[in-house]
């Protein structure tokens, strides 16, 4: 241990050095004045200082605080060696930053014992200093890792900005990472999907599940899956991924193109509340399923809640963090309070709700993540035409002769070809139905001359099918052509189907099919699913148009 001895009396220094060497401290340095002590200390970094009080240039009382000030964070013991023995002087030794004192002439045994006691304290201080350094290192490393993960989250958990005008929401995480999740996406058939979810716990561990959920959600939304299927897929993914004690409460909402037809899947979230324009609760969508990531696929229920709301109604969803937030007296906010706020001001924004929540909790920081999202029912038609579509016009012609017709149904291939173009997938289900109707009408009635009246009798379906198969096998001369023309400027897709048959009296056919009939529904469907239908020539050609 390096010991610095500061005394202007050389005899005293000699005695101390001698005594220390005898006690196993050979590494001693001497300074004969306060100034020399300070400069020497800078150079040798002593581990303990024996300091005389009375010196000529500056007293030990002045030197002690300066010595302390120029050392690093590790404890530097300063022991005063003093001839003064009045109470005040001894107290002052400690007041100015000294750690102990020994009276002159000093007692060797006591001085040696004090030195070793202070050496132990210094050792402790050194250890805690090193541990502190380590902690700082780890904290920096964790912060760096959080930054990286935050970056990845920022890029992976994304939402569709064009939906922003339709949803009012706010998320307030309890820590850097949010265990709550809000995802939204436009559906392929107009309409929109959103998901409000809450992983067990909060912070990074809770947030990590957001990555696979987000990716799967957007992929499924773009395919137009039902909220049940979305939930089932998320459940399966999370069941594999999450540890047994972690799960994901989530509510999935699909709003159809008209903006008022709601489909809701609630697994473990608080009630979603539907308010009318006056602010009264008109429906509660309570959780009907266990949170996701718990049950096996075959244990899961399938019930979706469906509701036909009206324009101006408002669906409010929030995470349990919101209703469980406490005021300083430990009273929970509760769902009732939120209902009161909306009743008092029907058009209250989510931001205003959060202001009220903050007032309620009186700024105590929340212990859980808070999320609230509000959707006010309105037409989503404008949204439908905002999808980006391929800027390239195209013209596809399919000409099928008898042998190609026998090969089988071309409808799926036609639909796939068109839907592989950017932005066209939105049409896929409508397009399938329409092309299928038109092609099958051309084939069954135009080319094969089958009469749907056959389907009247209960077994007519099979009879019709058999006759169709039979006539198809015998077919030798026939032609069906399909032409699909896409105009990216007008955003229109025109489909023309023509067959080699004699045509039919389409004026007669356009009357509505009755609900009881098992046939004749096709053209009515086509008319509803497209933007225009027109029969041409003798009725053996038909042209339909979609606004994309």
């Amino acid at each position, binding site marked *: 241990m390096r010991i610095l001895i500061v005394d202007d009396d050389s005899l005293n220094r000699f005695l101390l050095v001698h005594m220390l060497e005898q006690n196993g401290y050979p590494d001693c340095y001497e300074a004969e004045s306060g100034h020399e002590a300070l400069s020497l200390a800078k150079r040798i970094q002593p581990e303990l200082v024996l300091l005389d009080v009375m010196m000529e240039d500056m007293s030990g009382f002045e030197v002690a605080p300066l010595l302390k000030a120029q050392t690093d964070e590790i404890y530097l013991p300063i022991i005063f060696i003093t001839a003064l023995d009045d109470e005040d002087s001894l107290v002052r030794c400690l007041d100015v930053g000294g750690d102990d004192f020994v009276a002159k002439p000093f007692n060797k045994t006591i001085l040696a014992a004090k030195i070793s006691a202070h050496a132990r304290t210094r050792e402790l201080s050194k250890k805690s200093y090193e541990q502190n350094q380590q902690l700082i290192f780890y904290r920096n490393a964790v912060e760096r890792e959080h930054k990286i993960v935050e970056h990845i989250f920022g890029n992976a958990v994304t939402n569709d900005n064009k939906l922003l005008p339709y949803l009012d929401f706010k998320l307030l995480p309890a820590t850097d990472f949010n265990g709550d999740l809000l995802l939204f996406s436009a559906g392929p058939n107009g309409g929109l999907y959103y998901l409000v979810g809450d992983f067990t716990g909060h912070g990074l561990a809770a947030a990590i599940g957001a990555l696979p959920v987000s990716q799967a959600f957007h992929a499924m939304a773009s395919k137009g899956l039902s909220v049940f299927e979305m939930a089932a897929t998320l459940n399966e993914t999370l069941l594999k991924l999450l540890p047994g004690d972690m799960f994901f409460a989530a509510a999935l909402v699909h709003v159809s193109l008209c903006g008022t037809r709601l489909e809701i899947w609630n697994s473990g979230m608080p009630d979603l509340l539907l308010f009318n324009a006056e602010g009264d609760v008109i429906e509660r969508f309570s959780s009907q399923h266990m949170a996701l990531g718990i049950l096996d696929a075959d244990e899961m229920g399938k019930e979706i809640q469906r509701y036909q709301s009206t324009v101006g109604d408002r669906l409010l969803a929030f995470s349990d963090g919101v209703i469980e937030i406490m005021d300083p007296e430990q009273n929970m906010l509760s769902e009732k309070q939120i209902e009161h706020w909306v009743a008092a001001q029907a058009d209250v924004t989510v931001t205003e709700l959060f202001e009220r929540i903050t007032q309620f909790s009186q700024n105590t920081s929340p212990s859980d993540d808070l999320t609230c999202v509000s959707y006010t029912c309105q037409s989503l038609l404008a949204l439908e035409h905002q999808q980006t579509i391929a800027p390239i016009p195209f013209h596809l012609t399919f000409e099928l002769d008898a042998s190609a017709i026998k090969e089988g149904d071309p409808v799926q291939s036609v639909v796939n070809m068109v839907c592989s173009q950017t932005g066209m997938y939105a049409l896929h289900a409508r397009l399938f139905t329409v092309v299928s109707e038109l092609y099958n009408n051309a084939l069954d009635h135009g080319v094969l001359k089958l009469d749907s009246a056959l*389907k009247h009798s209960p077994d007519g*379906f*099979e009879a019709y099918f058999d006759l169709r198969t039979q006539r198809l096998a015998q077919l030798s001369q026939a032609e069906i052509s399909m032409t699909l023309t896409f105009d990216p400027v007008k955003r229109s897709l025109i489909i023309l189907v023509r067959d080699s048959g004699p045509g039919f009296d389409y004026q007669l056919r356009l009357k509505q099919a009755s609900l009881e009939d098992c046939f004749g529904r096709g053209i009515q469907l086509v008319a509803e699913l497209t933007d225009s239908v027109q029969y041409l020539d003798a009725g053996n050609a038909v042209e339909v148009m979609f606004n994309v």
Partner: protein
Amino acid sequence: MSLERKFSADKKQLTVVADEVFDFGKVQDFRVAFSTDIEDVEEVTIDLHKTDYMDSSALGMLLNMQKLLSGKVSTFKITNTRPQVLKILQIARFDKKFEIS
């Protein structure tokens, strides 16, 4: 390819799961699926969770099933419809003939 079928434990409820494409090509499979081993069946459910595409012949097949089983089966349900399929059922006003969910 036959369609997936499920019976409840008491054999009173039959669920038929339709394929991804539900059109006239399925007429025979569908007939077999709803009409075999149904002595005790009182309720038939058509599960459309897989079905992405449907046309008017599928609608006809559903109505035909109802006609063939009427007097025997009292409840007909259509479940797990995707939005685009639901739209077709709504246009055809099938909600008047089936319990759709």
